Every structure is written in C-alpha cells, then in structure tokens.
C-alpha cells in the first residue's frame, strides 16, 4: 500500500473541499459530543447512586449503661445477620470516635464546653440489599441495648424514604440514559455516513475516472477512508475536549453549591476505568475515527459496483 500517496491524496482533497471537510468535522463533533455527554452523565449518575446506596445505612445507638456482655451480644447478632447474607459490613463507633467525628464536623468550640461526652456509641450497619433496609432495621427496634426514647424506635436510624425514592429515580434515569445513548450512537452513524455520502456524491466523477484508468476498488477507497478517519479523529478530539471542559465546569459548579450528594466526578482526559476503558478522550477519538472510516466505506459502496 502506498501510504504516503494515499495520505497525500486524502489531505489534498480535504484542503480543496475544505467547506465539506469542515461540515463533516462539525457533524462528527456534534454527534460524538452528545454521545460523550450522555456517557459522562450516565457514569456520574452511576457513581452518585453507588454513593447513595452506601449511605443507606442503619445506625444502632447503644445505651451508655449497657454492659460489655450486652454489647458483645448485639455484635454477635449482627455477625449472624452477616453470615446469613443480610448485612454487608458494619463498624463499631465508640463514644470517643463519635465525639471526634462530631468535633470535626461542628468545630472545636462546641465540644470544648461540654462537661461530659453526650454521644452514644453505635454500630453502623450496611445492608446487603438496600430494599431490605426496613426489615433488617426492625430486628433492632426492641433490643434492650438500643438507646430508644420510651415508646419509640428512635435508637435505630436508617435510610429515609427520600433517599430511597431518589435511588429509584436515579435507576429510572439510568435506564433512560441507555436508551438515549443507543439513539444518539445510531444518529451519529447516520449523520456521518450522510455527510460522507454527500461529499462522495460531489466527487462521483472523480471516482468514475479512477475506475476508467483501471484503479482497483481499494486503490480508490484508501484516500476516502483516510479522509474519513482524519475527519472523524479531529471532530471527536474536539468533542472529547468539549465534554471534558463541560464536565469540569458543571462538577465544580455543583460542588460550590450545597447539593453535592451525588459527588460528581471530574474525569481525567486520559485514563479512566469502567465505562472509559481507554479514557474519555482516546475512546471518543477512536470512536470518531472509526465512524469516519466506516462511514466512507459504506458511502463508497454504491459507487464502486463493477
């Protein structure tokens, strides 16, 4: 393959048909940017949901006057639940630890004036399945060690209704995002192949002449494939940078407000696990280049029938 010849042909034709080339770049840019935005949002929501799920936690407060044996019995009860697969993990927070957390959150001054430590020790329990949080919490309601006010169960605190509703909403949004992702991916392919088809239609005479002088189909294709590849690459790199800047801006804005419960992530451009096995920018760039090249191939097909 005459790489330099084909590359030269592709670059030359992009320079000559720069309006068309720019239109194609913008098309790729818009479609991959939308796709990228959808994917980043989905990833962020996922992250937020995981975060919220970790907060679906049962806190069991222990009476100050319980004996060590009673506390051990409670721990044993939790261990049993863990063995049964109902509880994922738990931590014991002693009175001193509770005070340290309190101090960190509300400041030294308040704590300094306290004559005694009023905070109870507690177990923080994470359930295996967030849907079962009620059932697991109920098991501790009437435990003698639990620090209930008379006639209530307020010694056991667990995920409020709102958190669970929010989780439900997020999982709904996530499902919707999948649909949107698929729709936009399809739209991107169609847009790109239409653009390439237009530019090839404008040059069908060229293709005809190439065939007449005996160019093989691949000889004709390569410059177009290179052109599509370069176009897709440029458009997608622009889109990747755009999505990254958008993500950075929005994440910082949300952090500055008080609604950071989702703990949005600022993605790095290069390396990222999970949805972005190659990182945001490389994934989008590869995708764009691939779409461009494939778009060219598809669009050329009808002109290369022998």
């Amino acid at each position, binding site marked *: 393959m005459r790489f330099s010849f084909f590359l030269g042909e592709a670059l030359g*034709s992009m320079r000559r048909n720069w309006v068309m080339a720019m239109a194609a770049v913008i098309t790729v840019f818009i479609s991959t940017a939308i796709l990228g935005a959808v994917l980043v949002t989905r990833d962020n929501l996922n992250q937020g949901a995981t975060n919220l799920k970790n907060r679906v936690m049962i806190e069991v407060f222990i009476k100050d006057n319980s004996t060590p044996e009673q506390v051990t019995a409670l721990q044993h009860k939790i261990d049993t639940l863990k063995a049964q697969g109902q509880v994922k993990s738990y931590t014991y927070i002693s009175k001193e630890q509770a005070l340290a957390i309190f101090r960190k959150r509300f400041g030294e001054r308040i704590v300094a004036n306290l004559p005694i430590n009023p905070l109870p020790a507690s177990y923080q329990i994470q359930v295996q399945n967030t849907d079962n949080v009620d059932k697991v919490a109920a098991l501790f309601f009437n435990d003698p060690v639990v620090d209930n006010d008379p006639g209530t169960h307020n010694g056991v605190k667990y995920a409020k209704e709102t958190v669970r509703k929010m989780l439900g909403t997020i999982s709904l949004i996530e499902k919707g995002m999948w649909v949107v992702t698929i729709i936009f991916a399809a739209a991107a392919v169609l847009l790109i192949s239409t653009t390439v088809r237009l530019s090839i239609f404008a040059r069908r005479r060229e293709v005809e*002449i190439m065939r*007449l*002088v*005996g160019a093989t189909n691949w000889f004709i294709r390569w410059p177009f494939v290179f052109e599509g590849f370069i176009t897709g690459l440029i458009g997608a790199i622009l889109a990747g940078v755009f999505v990254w800047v958008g993500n950075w801006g929005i994440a910082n804005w949300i952090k500055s407000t008080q609604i950071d419960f989702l703990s949005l992530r600022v993605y790095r451009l290069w390396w990222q696990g999970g949805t972005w096995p190659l990182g945001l920018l490389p994934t989008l760039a590869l995708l764009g280049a691939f779409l461009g090249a494939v778009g060219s191939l598809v669009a050329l097909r009808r002109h290369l029938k022998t």
Partner: protein
Amino acid sequence: MIVFEDVTKVYDPDVVGLEDFTCHIGKGEFVFLVGPSGSGKSTLIKLILKELRPETGRILVAGRNLGTLRNSKVPLLRRNIGCVFQDFKLLPNKSVYDNVAYALEVVGEPHRSIRRKVPEILSLVGLAEKTNSLPHEISGGEQQRVSVARAFVNHPPLLLADEPTGNIDPETAVGIMQLLVRINRTGTTVVVATHDRDMVNRMRRRVLQLEAGRLVRDERRGSYDQVTEEADDAF
C-alpha cells in the same frame, strides 16, 4: 484484439443498444465507428471496458473472455485499454502532470519511472510547457491531448476514443487525430467512435457503420457515408 460474436445489449425498458453484433478487429488496426447518436457506438465502447454486460453473445478483448472475467480482474483489463472521451474526463483538481501520473500510480509504477515517463509523454503530445497547469487553465484541444497522454502512458495494446474531437475546433482536431495515428503506428490497436465526417473521409481507414444497434457496413478504407453503388450491393 477485439472479437464480438452475436452480441446483444438491451437497456432496461427494452431500448436496444446493440443487436446481433458480430465483428473482428485485429491487432494494430485503426478503426472508425460511425453512425448517428444512439446507434450503439458508446454502448460498444462500454462493453469493451466491461462497464456494461451484454444480454447474449461473447466478447473477447486481447484474448480474455469478458463474460467469464471476474469483477476483481476488471481493473487489470482497463489498465490494458487506454481511453479518450469527448469530455476529456480529467481530474479537475490535479495538474496536467498529476493527471497523467495518476494512471501510473494506479498500476503501482515506481516513482522514479513515473518521473521519467510523464515528461516524456507530455512532450510527445506537445504539452511540455503546461506541466503544472490545471485542466481548466488550458484549452479544450490541450485537455484532449492530456487525456491522450494519460491513455497512452502505459503503452496499452488497445486505445479507445469516444468522440475525441467532438468538443474541439477542426484544426485542433486534426492534431489529435495525427496523435492517434502515431500511437497506432507503434502497434497499438485504435478504435475511434466519431461524427467527424471530414476526418473519416480524409483518413480512409476501416469503417464500421452502426444504425439502431446493428452493423450496417464494414468497409476497409471506407468513407463516412455509404457510397450509393455500394448501398445497392449491401441491400
């Protein structure tokens, strides 16, 4: 070089392109195809290039049977056939040099020999001065000479010309024809489809006359029009 045996080509809604056409064109011949528009001249040329496929009949070009030639081999066939068209069919964005060089790039010719062969052929057709011009910067006659140079740069055994002088003034046309004759003298078979009465009458070469897709005359040193006595013989 070219053999047609009972070839019929019908276009989609039964428009006849060529009907029961049989002829034999030998190696090194110079043949004029004449006849009114729509008589089948261009169909004939497209069949030779395997741009079209006949409904019935057999076509052999340089010993290859086009009916059994695989699609992937069609480019190889075309590299052995130089083509000149009425509308020149030059790549508009490429210079004169690059247009000719393209035919060599396609064949995979090494760059060194491209750099040698292109100026050679351009000076042969008298365009050494216009190497870097774009097609729209030169005259029609010059464009046609570029197209002839491109067709001949590979030294193909067969050269087809479809109305090569159709868009050119008569004096320039003579130059193009002389070029084709020179190419013919190197041993290349030349087939020229034309409307140019004066040209055919002056050159007195073999003439194949087509009418409504049928061969009505095949004359060795013929003229454009059928002479009356011969017409009596023919019918």
